[in-house]
């Protein structure tokens, strides 16, 4: 029993586990929660291949169900003609499967009785470990902590008896040895390892996903207890092995969390309302292909509408805008850009919200945080410092914040004590009760009062992000390189306005464990203001501008960069480091703030149509109420209904109401002759957009497995994730309230459509030299449409890499239903 296996087996075993783990997605902790494609590591199989694996492993459908397509057909989001064309397209296609899908071919999850019992034990240990309740926490490994404790656990004894518990306690001290012993006990040869390991991971995809994040994505030395993948599998496999040996059950123990839902089984070829032609076309396909045809038909319908909206007329940008505003590519920015442009003489741009600065950032008195996309590692450390001459004020602010934090900590500690809460209720109840009542009955007013009190305790103090080369370790030359990359990639290299705003975004919500999912994905699930501040600090430095000038980017002395942040829950704007703004810009800034307030009010009114159409003219008050209400389940819709990623100058989309469904990345083909900027855009921002798109997709089509369940019953586990109810698996994906209105889907599950205005030969070159792009476009994870220039016809990229002309079959629907921008609503 305690003998160790050969280390040769260990390395092979680790590789087998790594391969098995391709079937699950990493799950980021709540504090930096980001959307991921749950099958990113299966992307080489193509979308169809990955869905096939998902069906085998999780028992899901992977495609929009018949209930959804029936509603889409009835509402006009897809037509019978779309279905006929999509069915014809699929009739010739083949589905490629390779790699792990070969290993799993013909296999399906086999339910047995052990899964619930085993899962209950394993999740209990995982939660206790992450909460620091096991011996050796937080430094000891999970497997060792469990192994040292399990011999005393009554729950394990209840499940496995004294003998079974003793077997677990007598396992080897190394997780790898324990796994090897279990696989041997189950009589599996190496060919059977992978299926068994997949079974173990898929039984608890939430906890396994956390382990995968820790083992494959977390920065080395990340703080907190390290529940890694090997340890997780060792513990689950150990319980399962002993359970199965005791009952001589040899079959795998996976209970799929979702059996294929009835509506998905309902034949997609006989959806009510279909034309005869469409029924006949679908009849030539098997059920799965018919479901795929529906998905393709809905995607084509959206594509035809979108391309029809993007005009072919060359529109010259205003050469003298009052200000230029650079927003994040986030689909929510489309709304504010559209409204801002309609209220004043402004030019807007879209760029990834970390503004090209992969930064580890330390706010005044705070711990460092990585503000960058998860595809990157931090390359520069920057800090917030007190403004010159404001050191004492900053010290007062710090002292206030510390006092407030200590008060909160003491309150939390008291609540965790067995007796103290009663004393706390006696002593503080008379204060707490009115506070609770105010918070519940008037959340927006309560939030304002709390903000004022907070400012009294910790008065604001002017600070700035320090860009000094000596202190950041980022020399002028490197700062100039960053600035050149940022400006070139966003296509802002000439025609600078006197005032350029870098506008990050964040979302203010209450009592929302998934709050980070509403913040900036390009900032690693954090708010975007500090990235904007840091980028502005660099772009305003004279030595950087001098170097930029040598590289051909001349920023006039009169141009000033200022940082702002869009609160997407309230559509209000905060500006930063105003004490640094030169006097000559104060007037422009005041006008811009007024115009942003008007644009924000218009956007709030537009958004409330989706959130609560009964609100009418009270939209601004309503969004503030939702933002501050600790009982609100839908403070905003986030990125729901995202559908496209558009790369090109703003003149390509200006005036079109894209309904906050498009990620907009600015791009100027003239300043990118070698395609470097285009390559950067397609290999990073587009990948992030694809992750978001696929997270929403799978969370919507198979919410039983890939959505995080009902917010009303969420419990936070060790600050890492949420469970539904008292325990169980960590919930993956997005909460149901971020996707559905009751039973009806709000998000429209479609694969991302990328639209590029750039020479197609250049696009082909970029795709050819990047395997990840060949996988995404060739595997139909992302659709691609492009045109060489404004007057050229749209071309559609095919799976084999060829291009065919776009042949619009549907007339774009009129889009004149957006609210006007003339509402007299006082904002903020």
């Amino acid at each position, binding site marked *: 029993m305690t003998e160790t296996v050969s*280390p*040769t087996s*260990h*390395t*092979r075993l*680790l*590789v*087998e586990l*790594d*391969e098995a783990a391709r079937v699950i997605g990493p799950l980021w902790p709540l504090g930096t929660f980001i959307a991921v494609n749950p099958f990113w590591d299966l992307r080489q199989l193509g979308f169809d291949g990955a869905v096939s694996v998902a069906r085998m492993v999780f028992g899901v459908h992977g495609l929009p169900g018949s209930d959804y397509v029936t509603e889409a057909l009835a509402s006009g989001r897809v037509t019978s003609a779309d279905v006929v064309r999509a069915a014809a397209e699929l009739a010739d296609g083949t589905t490629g499967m390779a*790699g*792990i899908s070969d290993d799993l071919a013909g296999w399906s999850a086999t339910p047995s009785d052990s899964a619930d019992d085993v899962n209950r034990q394993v999740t209990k240990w995982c939660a206790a470990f992450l909460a620091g309740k096991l011996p050796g926490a937080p430094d000891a490994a999970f497997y060792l902590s469990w192994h040292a404790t399990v011999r005393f656990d009554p729950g394990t004894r209840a499940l496995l008896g004294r003998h079974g518990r003793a077997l677990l306690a007598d396992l080897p001290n190394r997780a*790898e040895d324990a796994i090897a012993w279990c696989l041997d006990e189950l009589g599996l040869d190496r060919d059977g390892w992978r299926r068994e390991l997949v079974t173990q991971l898929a039984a608890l995809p939430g906890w396994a996903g956390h382990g995968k994040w820790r*083992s*494959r*994505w977390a920065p080395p030395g990340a703080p907190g207890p390290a529940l890694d993948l090997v340890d997780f599998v060792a513990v689950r496999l150990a319980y399962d092995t002993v359970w199965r040996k005791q009952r001589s059950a040899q079959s795998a123990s996976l209970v799929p969390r979702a059996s294929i839902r009835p509506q998905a089984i309902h034949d997609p070829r006989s959806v009510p309302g279909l034309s005869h032609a469409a029924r006949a076309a679908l009849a030539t396909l098997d059920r799965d292909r018919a479901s795929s045809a529906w998905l393709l038909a809905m995607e084509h319908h959206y594509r035809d509408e979108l391309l029809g909206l993007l005009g072919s007329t060359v529109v010259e940008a205003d050469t003298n805008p009052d200000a230029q505003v650079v927003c994040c590519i986030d689909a929510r920015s489309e709304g504010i850009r559209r409204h801002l442009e309609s209220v004043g003489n402004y030019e807007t741009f879209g760029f*990834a919200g970390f503004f*090209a600065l*992969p930064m580890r950032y330390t706010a005044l008195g705070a711990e460092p945080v990585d503000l960058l*996309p998860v*595809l*990157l*590692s931090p390359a520069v450390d920057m800090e917030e410092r007190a403004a010159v001459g404001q050191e004492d004020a900053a010290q007062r602010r710090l002292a206030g914040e510390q006092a407030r934090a200590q008060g909160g900590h003491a309150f939390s500690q008291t609540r965790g004590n067995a007796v103290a809460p009663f004393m706390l209720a006696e002593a503080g109840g008379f204060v707490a009760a009115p506070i609770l009542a105010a918070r519940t009955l008037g959340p927006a007013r309560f939030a304002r009062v709390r903000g004022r009190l907070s400012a009294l305790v910790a008065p604001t103090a002017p600070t700035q992000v320090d860009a000094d080369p000596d202190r950041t370790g980022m020399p002028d030359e490197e700062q100039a390189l960053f600035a050149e*990359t940022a400006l070139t*990639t966003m296509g802002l290299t000439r025609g600078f306005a006197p005032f350029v705003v870098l506008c990050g975004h964040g979302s203010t919500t209450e009592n929302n464990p998934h709050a980070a999912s509403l913040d900036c994905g390009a900032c690693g699930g954090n708010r975007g203001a500090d990235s904007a501040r840091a980028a502005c600090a660099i772009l305003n430095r004279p030595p950087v501008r001098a170097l930029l000038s040598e590289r051909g980017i001349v920023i006039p002395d009169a141009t000033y960069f200022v940082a702002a942040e869009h609160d997407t829950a309230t559509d209000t704007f905060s500006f930063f480091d105003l004490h640094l703004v030169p006097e000559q810009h104060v007037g422009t800034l005041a006008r811009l703030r007024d115009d942003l307030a008007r644009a924000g009010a218009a956007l709030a009114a537009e958004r409330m149509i989706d959130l609560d159409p009964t609100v009418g003219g009270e939209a601004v008050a309503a969004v503030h109420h939702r933002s501050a209400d600790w009982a609100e389940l839908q403070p905003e819709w986030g990125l729901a209904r995202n559908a496209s990623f558009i790369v090109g100058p703003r003149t390509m989309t200006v005036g079109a109401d894209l309904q906050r469904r498009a990620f907009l990345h600015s791009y100027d083909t003239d300043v990118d002759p070698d395609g*470097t900027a285009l*390559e*950067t855009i397609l*290999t*990073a*921002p587009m*990948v992030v957009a694809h992750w978001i798109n696929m997270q929403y997709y799978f969370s919507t089509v198979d919410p039983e497995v890939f959505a995080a369940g009902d917010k009303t019953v969420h419990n936070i586990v060790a600050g890492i994730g949420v469970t539904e109810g008292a325990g169980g698996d960590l919930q993956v994906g997005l909460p149901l309230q971020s996707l559905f209105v009751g039973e009806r889907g709000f998000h429209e599950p479609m694969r991302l459509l990328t639209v590029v205005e750039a020479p197609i030969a250049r696009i082909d070159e970029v795709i*050819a*030299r*990047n*395997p*990840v792009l060949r996988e995404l476009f060739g595997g139909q994870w992302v659709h691609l449409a492009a045109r060489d220039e404004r007057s050229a016809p749209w071309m559609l990229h095919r799976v084999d890499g060829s291009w065919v002309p776009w042949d619009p079959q549907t007339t774009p629907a009129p889009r004149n239903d957006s609210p006007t921008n003339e509402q007299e609503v006082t904002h903020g």
Partner: protein
Amino acid sequence: MDDAWQLTAMTKIEVVVGGEESAAVAELFAEVGATGFTAVSNVSGLGHDGYHQGRLLFNDRNGLALLMVVLPSDRVADLLDGLRALLTSRPGVLMVSDTYVSRPEYFQ
């Protein structure tokens, strides 16, 4: 090698893999007791899959990475077993060579 240098024979293993495989490779290094390694992200070069330019600006994981470790020879077989298994399903290059180090205690 001139004995006057008092160098110790070791084995150097270099692996070029996709950036997102770096963590799995590092895990194998740790499994055989390596106490350190070198990693370079976004490397460029020509392979049978064409030229890799190593110029992804905002993506460290979908370019190629070079990882290098030096080990006493008796641990090499275990590591090679795992690396070869890894490279059966993923693109990459594995190079093994004799090398010498001046401070062998760093590599035990």
